[in-house]
């Protein structure tokens, strides 16, 4: 009966039916839901891709080289996230903190690029009110940016916790959860980058 007695308490790593950590499971389910969230925004964007009746149009204003750079930065942050988690799991705290900081820093840099891009577009005359492209572009990338911002806050919070309470290897799940979220947000960006930026170089279909 011993293995039956231990069950479920929130934030513990006890055994359970499927042998998956409760919180990790929850995160996966939430991310599944989030897929549909972004999916609906992406569908809206695609549906309205050629529907704007006034400019600026995507191919006139999107800067693929600059955004490629910010995409590269965001993807690099995923690598830093992996290294940080691995270090936490090994108990190598200083390396873990370094990579955790690197992840959050690269994420912030990505946000910086996005803020710059938004200002630039507003300057060029594209706001969310201008046309359907503006409305769909700003909501889709804006909500992605909000996800990144939340992730950055989470990562910095973890950094703070590692200095105050410490994150020993047996509590590395706290980092792993943030990592799952972070990788998901990066993957979503890859899709957004493809759908918005790369597709804009195609000639608009009639």
């Amino acid at each position: 009966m011993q293995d039956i007695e231990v069950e479920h308490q929130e934030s513990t790593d006890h055994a359970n039916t499927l042998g998956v950590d409760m919180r990790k499971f929850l995160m996966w389910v939430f991310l599944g839901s989030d897929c549909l969230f972004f999916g609906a925004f992406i569908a809206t964007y695609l549906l309205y891709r050629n529907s704007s009746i006034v400019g600026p149009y995507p191919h006139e204003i999107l800067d693929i080289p600059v955004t490629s750079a910010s995409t590269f930065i965001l993807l690099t942050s995923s690598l830093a996230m992996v290294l940080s988690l691995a270090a936490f799991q090994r108990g190598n705290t200083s390396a873990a903190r370094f990579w955790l900081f690197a992840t959050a820093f690269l994420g912030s840099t990505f946000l910086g690029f996005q803020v710059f891009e938004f200002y630039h577009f507003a300057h060029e005359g594209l706001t969310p009110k201008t046309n359907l492209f503006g409305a769909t572009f700003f909501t889709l990338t804006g909500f992605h940016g909000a996800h990144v911002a939340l992730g950055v806050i989470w990562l910095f919070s973890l950094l703070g916790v590692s200095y105050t309470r410490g994150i020993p290897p047996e509590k590395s799940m706290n980092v792993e959860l943030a990592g799952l979220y972070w990788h998901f947000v990066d993957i979503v960006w890859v899709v957004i980058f493809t759908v918005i930026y790369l597709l804009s170089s195609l000639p608009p279909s009639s």
Partner: protein
Amino acid sequence: MATHSTAIKGVTERATYTGLMGWITTVDHKRIGILYGCTAMFFFLVGGLEATVVRMQLYSPGMDLVSPGMYNSLFTMHALTMIFLAIMPLGAAFFNFIIPLQIGARDVAFPRLNAFSYWVFLFGALILNGGWLFNTLPNVGWFAYAPLTATEYSGAGTDFFICGLQVLGVSSLAAACNFIVTILNMRAPGMTLMRMPVFTWMTLIISLLLVFAFPVLTVGLIELMFMRFYEMPFFNSNQGGDPILWQHLFWIFGHPEVYILILPAMGIISDIIPTFARKPLFGYGFVVGSGVAIAFLSFAVWAHHMFTTGLSALAVSVFSGATMLIAIPTGVKVLNWMATLWGGSLDLRTPMLWSIGFIATFVVGGLSGVMHASPPVDTQQQDTYFIVAHIHYVLFGGSIMGIFAGIYYWFPKVTGRMMNETLGKWHFWLSFIGMNVTFGPMHIVGILGMPRRIYTYPSGMGWDFLNQIETIGVFIIIAGMLFFLQNAFRSWKNGEIAGDDPWDGRTLEWTIPSPPPEYNFATIPVVHSREPLWDSKHPELGDHLPSVTGASDDVDTESIHMPNASYWPAITAIGVGLGAALLMVNPILSISGVIISIVGVYAWSFEPAAPEGH
């Protein structure tokens, strides 16, 4: 009464509260279930009153009981209240109370998240009803088709609609994620997926539907909100926007939502019928499989709400075919319930009456559904009272009948006392007759061409007599509800003592005391079959090992770890509600709500979930 601070310091004592604070800080799935149930029952009565006024206005041609604007608000609020504030949370009440008991667990996977779901639901319900205070109720229909929802055509009521539903979405999503993890990951040893009670199965399916359907509505609402608040041209045809996109987003959510409303009832009666027939559910695998099939198909049929919007002939043909496919798993379920009844020893007590009543009325709703799954026929039925009849046979004759079956069935488990059989039977027969008198003639009045959502009609259309009958039917239903309320209040305190297993039950929830202790199971049961209690009572019947169930005498229940009470879920929920409500006033102000939520989440993350030191 231990205080919160003792737990913070790492003392092993558990944080608990009593009285009102006890309810606010509770993380016990059973108490949260009761909170859901009582709140939802209150809103069920509110929604019923709204419907009563609607029906009284239609009693005869040219009635002038309420203004057209008020009438439009009332039918909008009736739908929103019944769907989001009554049937869904009544389902949630059962999920909360029953699921951990059926799978042999001591709580849900995330007790504090569960409390958070309830409080967010409550604040969402208040926001949705906030229009009553300012006399600007939503009046665009619960489907809120653009561009009627644009600022040119509708007032602040639409903002209450948007913000209320967004908050309710947060609640549903949190609850659904929680139940998926709970059901898949917290089953007692030996309870494989195909040994789960059908109600647990249906809850799992509903949770999956919610997780995948609700975000689509969230996106639709965000786009609608941005169109109204910030003039973004999402559904504005003058700037190239497509009002039909709203309908796609709404119904991609909306059709799975229909199954979110009906599947709990199907699960409930799949548990009740075997109990009162004294034989196992016929074709368990097929009943579960049909539920899964319905869930999959529900994402492929949304456009049958849009047959008349100008979709291509090909799209219409495909969606009509997919819609009709749903009739197959539904039919399989009905026939399996009937096969379960066949050859049984049917004890026609109140829960069983509701279950058999469910089959009878739900079949009518299913058949009329097949009729307008045929698009040409739908062009003569859509937006007439025929559809009103259909949805009420499905939602009242289906969901509500199933929910009442469940209330009579599990009331003894929740309160420890039986409901009165005589009053229960009065309630059933009055409701059954009342609903058929109210909604039956709507089929005919629909065929006679009466459109939905009209606040008045002239005489001479052939509708007068039938409308009178329908309105009279409402009062029969109300009479039934009075019997129910009387029964519930009286039985809660003074009903006959139920004992652990009043119905000769078959599943795990009947192995423990009524009402269950906070920890549910003194020892976690080991399950060897689909009907563990039944098989342990009748070892002579099968080759199964009788299931080990909790022998509580030799267990020190003091040593069972239970989670701490916490007020942070409620505070975080206040933040969410405040943020959404203030969004209608000024986005800057709503930051205060965000800050409260963030503080709540931090405090929640850093407080110990359970007493430390064990």
